[in-house]
């Protein structure tokens, strides 16, 4: 395992998502690699998100609903928080699929923030969760990612 991947995994194990960035051109590199896909510069890890001190915002590109064990009820009750998986474009330039728990289906363009991350207990990779932001939308928030 490369040093930067080891460092990344140590952070995400503690719930911190450290954005891999190129030291030459500044591009975000995801999935993580030792070198930048734009300029082949060396990649380092930026500050972490996920501990509540900083917010990584993004917008939903597309989404669908999870149906655990295939038990689809078709319930439209707004009192039940359902689980969705969403392709999210984050403002840092990274796109990934994350889980969102929400009472109503999200829509493309909805603003979300990275709320938690970690390692899958089964060893199948990383876990990402997003949530809808509590605060009113920042007018300077990303709109075209």
């Amino acid at each position, binding site marked *: *395992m490369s040093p930067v*991947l080891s460092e990344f*995994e140590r952070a995400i194990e503690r719930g911190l998502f450290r954005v891999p960035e190129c030291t030459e051109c500044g591009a975000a590199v*995801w*999935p*993580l690699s030792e070198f930048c896909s734009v300029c082949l510069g060396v990649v380092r890890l930026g500050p972490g998100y996920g501990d509540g001190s900083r917010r990584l915002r993004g917008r939903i*590109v*597309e*989404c*669908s*609903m*999870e*149906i655990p*064990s*295939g038990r*689809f009820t078709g319930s439209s009750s707004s009192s039940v928080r359902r689980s*969705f*998986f969403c*392709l999210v474009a984050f403002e840092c330039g*990274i*796109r*990934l*699929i*994350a*889980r969102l728990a929400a009472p109503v*289906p999200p829509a*493309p363009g909805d603003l979300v923030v990275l709320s938690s991350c970690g*390692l*899958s207990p*089964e*060893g*199948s*990779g*990383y*876990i*990402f969760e997003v949530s809808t932001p509590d605060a009113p939308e920042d007018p300077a928030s990303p709109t075209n990612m």
Partner: protein
Amino acid sequence: MRRACIVGCGTTGFTSDTSEALESVLLRSVKDLFDSTPECDRRDVEAVIVSNASGGCAGSGSAGHNSYGGDGGGGGGSVGDSSGGSRDGSSRPGSAGSPPARDHHASRRGSGYMAPILAELAGMRPRAAHTVESLCSSGTNAIVSGYAHVASGLADVVLVSGAEIRDTPGRILWWDDSRGQFKHPVYWASLLTSGYKRAFGVSDDDLAVVPARAYENARSNPDALRPEVTPTVEDVAGSRRLTGDLRLLDCSRPCTGGASILIASENAAGRYTDNPVWIAGVGQSVTSAGFAKHSDPSRIESARMACRDALRMAGSRGGGAARGVGATLSISDVDVAEIHDAFSVCEPMILEALGMAEPGRGAAASRELYETASRRVNPRGGLIGAGHPLGATGLAQAAEVARQLRCEARGRQADHHEVGLVHNMAAAGTSSTALVMVR
């Protein structure tokens, strides 16, 4: 470049058997090929190229994660089971779960070197033998490698053989951390389905015609995984929900199976057949490896580019001559096509990418195919109807088009065909390979 053609085909039945060794499946498809091409001496084969989605390292690892607990489905990924993977992106064939049932077989020990193994088992002594791995499009990429050997003059006769065991670790792209914990193919398929439905006002019911026609066509395909199963549109609509946008019968099913073709140069072909099928055009496109790089979840851009390039190459090499259209060839000249319908939504998306339907009209085109019981697209049942043995799929598609063009498709033979097309893709459509074939 020299011209290259297909002079023989062989296929196995597709099954759910996971006890068979990879080399056995390969060998059965090779035997079928040589049984039906008796003029070809196996000693004529100068190169053997094997297609397998695990790179020949098939195994029955089953770490148990990402399992969907179902009983089938999944383009390039079974809904019913899963295989090992690790956080550093490497596959772990056979690294967890129960020991393989028959681990004395080379493939069951995770051995590579499958092309030389096949050459030895089939009594061939080729100059070259290697394996091609490109997940679900391993088959057509292996054909391109075989075509290149012949076109360049490196070989006159090349055997291209593909196979997969149902529980292959090649079903899931563990490297792609942009998928987070949603690595199983049903998730990307759900997001493409959601995107396509949203963009063009398509409903789940509109997409249900795709599996209904696929299974109907597969009824006359003796190699199909379960030709006796013929769900109706209502059955598809009522099948178990896997996600908010995907039902069980929307999914192709991983299976065990093999397929082989024999490619020959123009000089050699006459020794084996008077009915060759020429590989007139090749197109390939890789837009990314990771799913999240998809710029538009309602389109499969790699399919559009690969098919455009394959048609352009075929036209520039006189591929249209068979139709009396000189040096041009367009999608309207294609009489029969095998396209990569790993999930229901893939059919309309690919029809649009190929130009067989206008943008946004793919679902309407799928409905027309269904209502006319057409065999122009996926006459053997496609991946949904016939099954999806990853490393064999592209070869089975090419074998079907070759058989259609040679009027050897028996019960599923449609009209007299002169121009055929194969589209095969991998990893959520991040790459595609297309072949244009002419009689």
